[in-house]
């Protein structure tokens, strides 16, 4: 009976546990503790597998799908795009450390020069513009494929996003992302946390709701419902649209700050993208 009461309190949002100004490290610890208590029988690293961490049937289907990964074509296309020189003879490899390979674990980061969060997709387009090329559309196509390839080369690396405590602007960006995550919006009056914290593990239609921790590890992801590989920001657009909020532009300040917070919440997880989701 006590368990029922606690879960009802969680579901109705009456169980607040700490003030918002705790700081990134305490936020991360509180988030991890919450999910470990909520799912005591799930190994923490399994949260990187989203809903497949606690739905055996869906997991079996997913593992079968991974035998012939639907994102493989995008990765191959992305590799070809990545290795195609720009008109000036330079290439993407010239813009990134380690020639752009095995680096996704360091994104997003806070850029002190612009006082903005830089995501991998934004950096790809910055690279193009610095080399005289037109930026690519963010929601689908070539840029998503390049991002998928770069993610593929980073598989197994541990997410290590930095929010320096002595950098007020970086902390402000992190806090803005955190506020976005916990703020209800749209006609349906949902926040990200309404689903992924308050009723995590319960089902929305056929699918259990995934945890916040480990959520970003597998992007870009192939979505079966869309039949293509998509970026994290396109998923943000979809989530906001589903609660009947006007979504923000991909790579807007709002979504970049949200990605900053959300990725920090996955610090310590191994990258396992691209992956597939329903």
């Amino acid at each position, binding site marked *: 009976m006590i368990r*029922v009461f606690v879960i009802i309190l969680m579901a109705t949002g009456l169980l607040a546990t700490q003030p918002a100004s705790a700081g990134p490290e305490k936020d991360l610890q509180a988030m991890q503790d919450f999910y470990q208590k909520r799912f005591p029988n799930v190994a923490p690293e399994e949260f990187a597998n989203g809903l497949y961490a606690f739905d055996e049937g869906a997991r079996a289907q997913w593992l079968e799908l991974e035998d012939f990964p639907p994102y493989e074509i995008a990765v191959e296309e992305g590799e070809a795009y990545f290795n195609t020189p720009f008109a000036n003879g330079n290439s993407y490899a010239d813009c990134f450390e380690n020639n752009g390979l095995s680096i996704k674990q360091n994104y997003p980061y806070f850029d002190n020069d612009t006082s903005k969060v830089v995501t991998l997709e934004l950096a790809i387009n910055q690279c193009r513009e610095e080399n005289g090329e037109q930026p690519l559309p963010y929601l689908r196509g070539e840029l998503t494929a390049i991002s998928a390839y770069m993610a593929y080369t980073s598989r197994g690396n541990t997410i290590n996003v930095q929010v320096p405590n002595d950098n007020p602007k970086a902390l402000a960006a992190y806090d803005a992302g955190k506020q976005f995550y916990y703020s209800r*919006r*749209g*006609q349906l009056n949902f926040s990200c946390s309404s689903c992924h914290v308050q009723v995590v593990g319960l089902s929305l239609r056929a699918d259990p709701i995934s945890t916040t921790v480990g959520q970003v590890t597998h992007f870009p992801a192939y979505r079966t419902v869309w039949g293509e590989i998509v970026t994290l920001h396109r998923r943000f657009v979809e989530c906001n649209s589903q609660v009947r*909020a006007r979504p923000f532009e991909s790579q807007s300040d709002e979504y970049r700050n949200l990605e900053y917070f959300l990725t920090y919440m996955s610090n310590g997880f191994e990258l396992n993208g691209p992956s597939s989701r329903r």
Partner: protein
Amino acid sequence: MNWTYLILLMLLVGGCGQSAEREYELTPSNSAPLSVITDELTPSASYEEAHAAAVMAIGVAANKGHAWSTSDSLLKQAQAAAVDGNEDRAIQLADQARVQGELAAQQADTEENVWQEKVL
């Protein structure tokens, strides 16, 4: 009763299932569906007036980062009705869009004050 069903029942009655109409009061009949609320409003004097008020209300919500997609849709429908010469319908839809813009702005103001209560 299976506890899962009990939780789902709670969500339907409150919590995640709360609609903006129930949470934010614009009229005394705040528990009614939005369509009923807007039906009870005095219609704007003209479509131009209703449209301008709706654009302003939605703009306020958007500046707070909380615009609703539904108000955008209502405004488009209002514009289409006006083009078709159905002024009464255009006014009704634009008024609904304005109310949703006002609700969205209220949501933004409310969340500015309460979001921290939900932080883990």
